[in-house]
């Protein structure tokens, strides 16, 4: 060994007193660059817990953990980040549909406990929570496509000349593109009353497997083509893409998938336990809830008979919804599937109290879903004059194919979907139409798109208009007299109420006053010993968690039971009763 190497360890000590080559750090670590990708921050109020950050993370560094109770539109989960895995790529920030996730420009954090480097930004307090600097998604840069594939529709002028469907429907290419916008967060599943497997069937559409999509759709919806056309789409209202862009067109994609197949029985081969062999079930009312019960029990081996007062099943989707929104061919296709599953139909037959009692004795279960068939009355002077008609009667006559004459000028009283349907039908019948509504457009229960379509078709909406009376004019018309209302905010958080401004009267001379202010139950036919057990003070029916009423074996659902009065809620009620009846049957087998 040379002398050089022998003394080297000792000469190295000289470096301790020599001038350093590095620059000494003073005042702590240098701040990160303004757009540095440092520790995460999350605006938990803005975050909806969709989990898209977790899904995109290539290192599986993000877990979604519960921090609050889930509510519709918010899973209650928030991202927890493991910095042992995080590579600071910021894909999670760039994809975040709500825009809640960001990164601070803080990067120095030392601790002897490794577990602290897994935390929930925004929940576990950190010094950088309010950091203005750091990585944020750039304006205009989107990993998710915010723009919905537009739906083709008939021109408004053309619509009023025809009963053809207004919505044209997606092409295959359009459907694939629209489906590819889904981030698979599943918030829609919780919002859908029937909890349809939405991301799964949208994924199948995206992957080009439409048959699979229909099979998934039929997991828990026996009237999907109807829902694909007229659903109230609570799912879309919570779509995570909708926070910053257009929500996914879930309704139109369901419509696309179901319209792809003329014979649904060829596509669907349900693999379910035939637990109901040898059992019989009677369904009273062929609306969405009744048909749901009929289909899902029939494929499980139950012998099901649907009793319907009208010449066609479908309930409000048959007699209430106009054909330009939901054509007869779509309804018949769905009913054909039920027939192929073995469901029997007794049409033009109104069940009475004695028959209900008999049905309860002769069947293993009876399901009642007869809807809200009693129109609320105007209760204004002149409501009994000829020409003042309930909208429900007018819609039913029109859909039964009977001649409906509304004259040249019509006022429709109300702001729900029934009012909009009555007004758009009246336009197609050639009338000039005004809607008189007590509140503001923003308060209307009708679907926003329907309101827009009605206005595009020439329907005039007069808001804050309180009906005062109807008078007959000398030339055989009706003078609809209304007063203006002021909106009174009585209780914070509730919709304001209209209050008449006294002393002002407005006149609208028309041929018809069509009343569409609401509907209620019509259960006078029930035997008193049954109605006293199952009806509440509003005349609606109450059921338990299995869908059964206080009468053993009598189940109920639909508008008579829920307070949302839409088809998908009726379907959900039907599914609840199916589960109740199947579970009970299984228990009897044991």
């Amino acid at each position, binding site marked *: 060994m040379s002398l050089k190497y022998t003394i080297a360890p000792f000469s190295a000590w000289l470096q301790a007193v020599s001038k350093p080559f590095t620059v000494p750090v003073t005042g702590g670590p240098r701040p990160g660059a303004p757009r540095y990708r440092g520790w995460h921050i999350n605006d938990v109020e803005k975050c909806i817990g969709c989990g898209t950050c977790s899904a995109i993370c290539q290192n599986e560094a993000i877990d979604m953990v519960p921090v609050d109770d889930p509510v519709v539109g918010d899973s209650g989960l928030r991202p927890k980040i493991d910095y042992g895995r995080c590579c600071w790529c910021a894909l999670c920030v760039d994809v975040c549909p709500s825009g809640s996730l960001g990164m601070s420009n803080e990067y120095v954090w030392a601790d002897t406990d490794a577990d602290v480097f897994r935390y929930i930004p925004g929940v576990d307090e950190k010094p950088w929570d309010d950091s203005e600097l750091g990585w944020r998604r750039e304006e205009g840069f989107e990993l998710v496509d915010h723009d919905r594939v537009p739906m083709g529709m008939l021109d408004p002028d053309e619509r009023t000349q025809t009963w053809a469907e207004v919505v044209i429907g997606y092409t295959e290419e359009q459907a694939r593109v629209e489906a590819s916008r889904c981030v698979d967060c599943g918030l829609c599943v919780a919002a859908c009353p029937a909890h349809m497997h939405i991301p799964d069937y949208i994924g199948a559409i995206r992957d080009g497997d439409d048959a699979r999509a229909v099979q998934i759709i039929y997991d828990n919806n026996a009237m999907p083509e109807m829902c694909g056309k007229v659903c109230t789409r609570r799912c879309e209202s919570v779509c995570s893409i909708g926070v910053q862009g257009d929500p996914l067109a879930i309704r139109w994609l369901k419509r696309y998938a179901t319209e792809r197949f003329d014979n649904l029985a060829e596509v669907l081969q349900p693999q379910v336990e035939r637990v109901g062999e040898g059992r019989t079930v009677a369904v009273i009312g062929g609306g969405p809830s009744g048909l749901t019960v009929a289909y899902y029990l029939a494929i499980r081996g139950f012998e099901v008979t649907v009793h319907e007062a009208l010449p066609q099943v479908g309930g409000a989707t048959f007699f209430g919804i106009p054909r330009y929104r939901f054509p007869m061919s779509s309804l018949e296709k769905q009913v054909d599937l039920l027939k192929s599953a073995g469901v029997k139909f007794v049409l033009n037959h109104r069940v009475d109290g004695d028959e209900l009692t008999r049905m309860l004795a002769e069947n293993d279960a009876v399901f009642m879903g007869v809807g809200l068939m*009693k129109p*609320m*009355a105007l*209760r*204004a*002077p002149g*409501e009994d004059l000829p020409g003042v008609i309930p909208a429900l009667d007018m819609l039913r006559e029109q859909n039964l194919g009977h001649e409906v004459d509304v004259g040249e000028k019509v006022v429709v*009283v*109300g*702001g*729900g979907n*029934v*009012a909009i349907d009555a007004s758009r039908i009246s336009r197609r019948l050639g009338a000039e139409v005004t809607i008189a*509504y*007590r*509140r503001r457009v923003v308060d209307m*229960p009708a679907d926003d798109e329907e309101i827009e379509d009605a206005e595009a078709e020439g329907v005039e909406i007069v808001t804050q208009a*309180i*009906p*005062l*009376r109807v008078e007959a004019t000398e030339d055989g018309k009706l003078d609809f007299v209304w*007063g203006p209302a002021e909106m*009174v905010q*009585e209780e914070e958080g509730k919709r304001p*109420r*209209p*209050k*008449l401004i*006294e002393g002002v009267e407005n006149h609208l001379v028309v041929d018809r006053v069509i009343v*569409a*202010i*609401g509907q*209620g*139950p019509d*259960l*006078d036919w*029930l035997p*008193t010993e049954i*109605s*006293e057990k199952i*009806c*509440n*003070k*509003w*005349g*609606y029916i109450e059921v338990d968690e299995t869908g059964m009423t206080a009468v053993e074996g009598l189940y109920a659902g639909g508008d008579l039971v829920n307070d949302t009065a839409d088809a998908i809620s009726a379907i959900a009620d039907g599914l609840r009763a199916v589960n109740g009846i199947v579970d009970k049957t299984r228990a009897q087998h044991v």
Partner: protein
Amino acid sequence: MKSFEEILDFAIDNEQKAHDLYMDIAEMATRPGMRQTFLEFAAQEMQHRERLEAIKAGKLPELDQARVETLGLSEHLVDVPVEKDMDYQSALLFAMKAEQRAYDLYAGLAKATDDPNLVTLFEGLAQEELKHKLHFEREYDDVVLGDN
């Protein structure tokens, strides 16, 4: 003009009569759920009676004189007769009109007297009736006029 106590007795008697009427209607109601509705209305009238009795006994503060703003819902609607097949809409309308009539009665009595104590009492009773009317108006606005 009668004494303070006599007027309260009169008001108590009115509430009792309203209670009895609702009990009678409940007894004859044929529509599903309506018996329960009228029994609830009757129970509310009984609560009103008990409140007045408590005031008479000096157990409750005096009646609130604050003016109640109603929605003016029933004034332009038709009268409904008492029938055995009354529905919920008719029941609410009937109740609103009954409360309005009670208000008119007390408001008229307040105008007919010069005694400031009695004026205060009558006006307080009148506002009580308006509160009851407002309760039914809100229910009518929510349940019957949900689509309007």
